[in-house]
């Protein structure tokens, strides 16, 4: 459905834009309908840049992004509007996604003006209710309220409901649950899982490995703009091969297992010891790719 082909993004940095920063380097992957692909990386790894390029909020510097075979960088006017009817994004901070002056349901009204202006009021209301129902919100609880009157989980679900109104086929979920409390974040995550069952493709961008592992079918680990490891989630988490993936997994705090060698200052900042991933992506087993480095022993 969505296909990225050797996408690169360089940002101009410095006082007069003289410097260049390579934010995303040679990233290729596909998202199929009904598939959750998670993009895991630390801050500055380029994961949000990839999401923004797919949503056309940023231009691709090199490479192509195709949706159903059409290069999205050339889309304009009506075609672009049609593209946004298929692809929508939800972002990290539900509190800043809304305009605090207006009621939260204004996001639906704006959508109606843009896409459903011919629809009768009763049909629109029915559509709205079914989409709120899909995200398990009670219309009476959320409609006509201001953003500050709703909880973060409710606001985030409203944004997902807004995306669903368009019968989208791909959702770019950029850190959608990082700002939510532990007791509500799992419900939003389960909602994404249910939507996957209805054939929605989801690009799940996160820095939290346990959330990525919980929800996704395929996982890509990003480091400094490069994909260092990608493959089916059980393979990447069950048999991590790149040293960076191993460091990440060893750092995840687990409830019932303690970190190895806690307080041992000898192994501080292990991140720097990993060589630059200059090598090529090598397929180790079925669909499991690892970028080779000097220190990687690929077996």
């Amino acid at each position: 459905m969505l296909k990225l082909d050797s996408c690169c993004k360089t940002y101009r940095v410095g006082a007069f834009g003289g410097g260049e920063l390579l934010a995303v380097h040679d990233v290729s992957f596909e998202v199929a309908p009904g598939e959750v692909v998670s993009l895991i990386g630390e801050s500055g790894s380029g994961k949000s840049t990839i999401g923004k390029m797919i949503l056309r909020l940023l231009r691709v510097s090199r490479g192509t992004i195709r949706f159903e075979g059409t290069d999205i960088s050339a889309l304009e006017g009506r075609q672009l509007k049609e593209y946004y009817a298929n692809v929508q994004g939800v972002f990290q901070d539900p509190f800043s996604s809304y305009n605090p002056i207006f009621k939260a349901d204004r996001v639906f009204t704006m959508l109606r003006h843009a896409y459903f202006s011919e629809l009768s009021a009763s049909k629109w209301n029915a559509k709205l209710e079914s989409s709120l129902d899909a995200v398990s919100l009670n219309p009476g609880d959320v409609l006509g309220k201001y953003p500050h009157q709703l909880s973060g989980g409710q606001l985030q679900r409203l944004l997902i409901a807004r995306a669903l109104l368009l019968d989208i086929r791909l959702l770019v979920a950029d850190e959608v649950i990082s700002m939510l409390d532990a007791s509500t974040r799992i419900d939003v995550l389960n909602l994404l899982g249910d939507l996957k069952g209805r054939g929605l493709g989801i690009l799940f961008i996160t820095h939290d490995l346990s959330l990525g592992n919980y929800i996704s079918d395929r996982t890509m680990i990003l480091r400094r703009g490069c994909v260092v490891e990608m493959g089916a989630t059980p393979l990447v988490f069950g048999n991590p091969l790149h040293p960076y993936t191993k460091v990440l997994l060893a750092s995840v705090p687990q409830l019932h297992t303690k970190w190895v060698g806690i307080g041992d200052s000898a192994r501080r900042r292990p991140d720097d010891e990993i060589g630059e991933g200059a090598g090529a992506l090598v397929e180790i087993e079925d669909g499991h790719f690892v970028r080779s480095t000097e220190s990687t022993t690929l077996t």
Partner: protein
Amino acid sequence: MALRVDGLTVYYQSLRGDVKAVDGATFGIDDGEIMGLAGESGCGKSTLGKSLIRMDARMRYVSGHVELDGVELPIWDDAKMNPFRFVKVSIIPQYALSALNPTRKIGHMATELLASRDIPPDSVLPEFRRRLELVGLPMTVLERFPIELSGGMRQRVVLVLSSLLDPSLLIADEVTSALDVSTQRAVAELLVEFRNRGFVRSMIVITHDLSVLSQIADTILVMYAGKLAEKAAADMVVDSPKHPYTNLLLSSLPEVGVRFEEQRLAGIPGRPPSLLDPPTGCRFRDRCPLAFEKCGEEPPFAAVEPGHSAACWKVAA
């Protein structure tokens, strides 16, 4: 016992009335203990931490006593607290960037900070450099502005600065929350190392992340809606929680290895009550699957077994 908090009650003043953010907190911390303070946003955990060092203008002390090393802390009096701050009680605030003065280089800022407390900088600065080296920072950071440092480096600078005078109590408020997993681990381990080396006697680590606490804390105190819910050794809280809230909170955390297709986790339905006018009785009652008639009365925060306290009628001894 290094710290004794007895019936501490702190309200926020708002136009619509008092927000009862911390209501009757009673607990103690031993010498050398790292106590984790956990709970969801708005449960009062940061308020409790802040009230031990400095109440901001909106906070109002209502009642309770705080004793540190046998000396009562005058937390209700901003001026009288001054001799204790930084020397006896220190804090790492929630956002490291906002804790550092953006217009001063790190070295300059440290000198100014010491001068403001009438401490001759030359007596402490060598130790400051030694500790910066210990946490893995190059000496060049002294000549850098905060904005030039990464999140993990800033957090380490603030950690070293806050604990420079070897305080009895260090309050670390969400220090690991904004960091990436590998940096998070490095900073969390530094907290333990600082305790082990005696730079800090005891510590309160405030976070919403129970899994980080299970790694570094000796004991965990869980708060819900301004009240203490449960306190016990970290392993006991994680492995055999008594309070239904702790239990549900733990079961909603996805761990590496748990997958949506195989095991579907559930959140806690509902949301915490408003603290403007909190319900009588147990505040978790409306969301609790075990609630019964007696929950209309307020459960005491009492020991249910040695070293394990909880506020719940279902588990009361």
